[in-house]
């Protein structure tokens, strides 16, 4: 069985949980007390990932760190339809990859602001917020023009891809870092669409599309 080294309040870990849930893949959650225990800095976890970063996914002999890499692996391995990580069209494959890179930027900005405000991490929250707003502005404009072309998702195509999963958590959790989404209406509509993907699951800080569902 797949094992996920996981922290409940981590948006990066949530990406892996979200795709695994959508694809209906069973896995074992191994809670690593990132906060308040800071167990990711202790030898036991450093033996799993010397970088001390969550999540880490183990599947058989494979051990994989970095949330975007985990999404790519899970999609290639467990999505027989191939639509979550489309490779047929070079143009689409490139754009999916571009948004996976964009997600790294969200981790460096929106996630950093959240860790500073919520968990007392010693980051420059103002700089992180400014950075996040620049990314959100680009994303909102992109999604607005996607909508004008009848496109619901970050990458072209009728179905969502790992790009949407990778960008969703730290956009949705941005208010915890003091980043309002009131000037990003196309982003807000996109987050509603992500919540309606069959198999969608929540994490603390994110509510479901249907009230009181789990």
């Amino acid at each position, binding site marked *: 069985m797949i094992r996920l080294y996981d922290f409940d*309040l981590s948006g990066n870990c949530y990406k892996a949980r979200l795709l695994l849930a959508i694809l209906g893949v069973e896995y074992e959650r191994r809670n690593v007390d990132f906060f308040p*225990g800071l167990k990711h800095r202790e030898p036991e976890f450093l033996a799993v990932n010397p970088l001390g970063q969550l999540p880490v996914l183990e599947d058989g002999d494979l051990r994989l760190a970095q949330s975007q890499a985990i999404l790519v692996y899970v999609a290639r391995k467990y999505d027989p339809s191939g639509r979550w990580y489309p490779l047929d069209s070079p143009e689409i494959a490139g754009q999916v990859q571009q948004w996976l890179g964009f997600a790294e930027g969200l981790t460096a900005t929106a996630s950093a602001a959240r860790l500073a*405000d*919520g968990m007392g991490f010693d980051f420059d929250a103002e700089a992180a917020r400014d950075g996040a707003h620049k990314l959100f502005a680009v994303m909102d404009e992109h999604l607005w023009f996607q909508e004008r072309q009848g496109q619901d998702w970050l990458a072209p195509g009728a179905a969502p891809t790992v790009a949407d999963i990778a960008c969703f958590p730290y956009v949705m959790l941005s*208010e*915890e870092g003091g980043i309002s989404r009131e000037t990003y209406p196309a982003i807000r509509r996109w987050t509603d669409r992500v919540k309606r993907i069959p198999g969608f699951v929540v994490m*603390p800080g994110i*509510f479901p599309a249907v009230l*009181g569902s789990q």
Partner: protein
Amino acid sequence: MADPLPDPFMLNQWFPISALQDVHDRPRRTTLLGEPLVYFRDGSGCRVTGADGRALPVLEQYACLWTTLGRPEGGLFPIPEYDEPDRRNIAAGSIGVNVSAMRGIENFLDMGHFPYVHTGILGELPHTEVKEYNVELREGGREIVATECLFYQPRASTVSTSGADVEYVYRVPHPTCSVLYKSSPMDTRRLDVIALFGQPTGPESFRGHMVLSILDDVNADDFISYFQLHIFGQDKPILENQMPKRLPLDPRAETPIRADKTSIMYRRWLASNGVTYGVIPAAA
């Protein structure tokens, strides 16, 4: 808008500023009532210094480091259960929230949101009813106590798979701290204690320090803190989407229902103690 000065009632309180487990030799910074503080540990215990470098009074109690910017009349409110030898006392995490500490306390006192915010854990649709309960002032008016609070909880204990009403008792012995008692899944005759100690960093922000004193010899500390953080993480987006961010004390600012008896008393109690910090006082 300049940050307001604390009113005397707030100024002369002890406030938590860190879990004791997070106090180390290396000094750390935090904020209390708008004032930047530094805290650290040396050979003789925990130390706190104020903005001007002066040493502030210190208490090490209930798994937290407490200090004050004023002159409190005595020590902290009692939590007798904390000293019972068979209990585990756990600091389950400290989380910053961008809303007034009083909004945070009021949410802690609220049961009606369980099925909507803590779905599947503390409540579940369609079981939404908040039944009649009692609330009163005790200890000569120094403390609010709500008793006989019942709410439907799915999988009411670790051994049951079906839902049932769970009983809660809430205490508010401090303007930004509340202590909750809940029947223990391990020993039905005794109660687990879950406390939320609010550190008002500013009038519209606080850090919530969660401390538990529970009867549980099965689960590891990190599982217990995982559970508390999960619950608090679910409350956070609600709290940070409340407007205004300060708790309004004007009875006509919001619409109370019978389920809100405790929070109505809490708002009146804050008003009668002359609290102006973190709240919007009712117009005279």
